[in-house]
C-alpha cells in the first residue's frame, strides 16, 4: 500500500513538473539584443534623475550635511 502511495505522489509531482515546463516553454520571448537595448535605454533616459549616479549638491542631499535642517 505504502509503495503505491509513494509512487502515486511521485507521479503527481512529476506531472506537475511537466505541466509547469510546458507552460514555461510556451511564453513569448524577445531577442537579447532587443531586451538589452531596452535596459540600456532605460538607464540612460533616467540617469539624470538618479542621485547616487550623478550626485546631488550637498544642500539637496539630506544625508550629506552633518545634521539635517528641519524639513517639515
Amino acid at each position: 500500500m505504502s509503495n503505491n502511495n509513494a509512487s502515486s505522489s511521485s507521479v503527481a509531482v512529476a506531472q506537475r513538473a511537466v505541466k509547469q515546463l510546458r507552460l514555461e516553454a510556451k511564453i513569448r520571448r524577445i531577442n537579447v539584443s532587443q531586451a538589452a537595448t531596452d535596459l540600456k535605454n532605460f538607464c540612460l533616459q533616467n540617469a539624470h534623475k538618479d542621485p547616487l549616479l550623478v550626485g546631488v549638491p550637498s544642500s539637496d542631499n539630506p544625508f550629506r550635511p552633518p545634521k539635517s535642517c528641519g524639513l517639515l
Partner: protein
Amino acid sequence: MEMAAQPSDTLATLKTESETLKTKLEEERAKLHDVELHQVAEKTEALGQFIMKTRRTLKGHGNKVLCLDWCKDKRRIVSSSQDGKVIVWDAFTTNKEHAVTMPCTWVMACAYAPSGCAVACGGLDNKCSVYPLSLDKNENLAAKKKSVAMHTNYLSACCFTNSDMQILTSSGDGTCALWDVESGQMLQSFHGHAADVLCLDLAPSETGNTFVSGGCDKKSCVWDMRTGQCVQSFETHESDINSVRYYPSGDAFASGSDDATCRLYDLRADREVAIYSKESIIFGASSVDFSLSGRLLFGGYNDYTINVWDVLKGTRVSILFGHENRVSTLRISPDGTAFCSGSWDHTLRVWA
C-alpha cells in the same frame, strides 16, 4: 512485492518528458541569445569614480541586523535583529522612534507599510505580524499586534503590496503566500520551490501583479499573484539565492547568491543576461538593490563589503568598507539619494 507497473512506467515517461522539455526550453532561450548585455553597452560612457561614505551609523540592536526597510517618507527605517527586536529609526537624526520586542529571536523579515503607519515582521515564530505605529511613545506597541500570516517554518521575507491591506510572505516551508491583513486570511499561495524560499520582491506597480522569489533550490520564480501560477523560472545560480530585486522598469530582476555572484535576468528575453562576479569575490552576496535609474547594482556580501556594479557593462565601479561583519541587508532609499545597509556587526549604515 506488488509490481506497480502502471505508476512506475508513467513516472519514467514523465521524467523523460521533463528532461526533454527542459532541453527544449534551453534551446528556445539560446536561439534568442544573439548578444551579451555588455556588448550592447560597449559605446555607453563609462562611469566615473564614486565617493560614497557612511553618513549615519544606527546603533542600538543587541545582535545581528537581519533585515531593513525604508518608509516612503525617505527618512524612517525599520530594522529587525537576531536579538528579537524591531526598531524604527529616524535616519536623519539617528533617533530610535519605536522599539518592539518580538516573542522570538531571529526576526528575519520586516517591512514598512506604504502608509508609514505600521510595520510587519516575523522570523522563527513562523508568522508575520503587523504592528500599528503609535504616535504615543509610551504606548506598548506589542499590545496592538495583529498576527497575519502563518507558515509551517520560518518567515524569511515579507512585504506589503500596494496598500496596507495585503502582505506577501516567503518562508522556510518552501512556499510564498498573499494575506489579507485585516482578516488574516490567506488569499493565494504559491507552490513551486523545492526548498526554503529566502527572498521576494514585488514588481513595480506599473508592471502588474507579479512578484519574484528566490530560494535554497537555486531557483528564482516569477509568479502571477492572481492565479498563484509560476510564469517563469530561472536556474543558473550555483547555490542559495539570498536576495532578489526588480530592475526599476520591471522588465528584469537581479539576484544575489551564496555562489558569490549577482545575476541579471531579463523577463522578456526569458534568460540570464549578465553575471556580476570577480575571482577575488568568494563570499556570498546576501542582499542586492538597484539605484533609481537601474545603472548601479549594490550588493552586500558576507565578506563585510558592499560592491557597486555597473549593471550595463558588468564591471565593478566601487567597493565600500565599513561594516565589521557580514552585510545581511541593503536597501536604496525611496528617492534614491542614499542607501542603508544592515550587518551582523549589529549596526545599520546610511551611505550617500
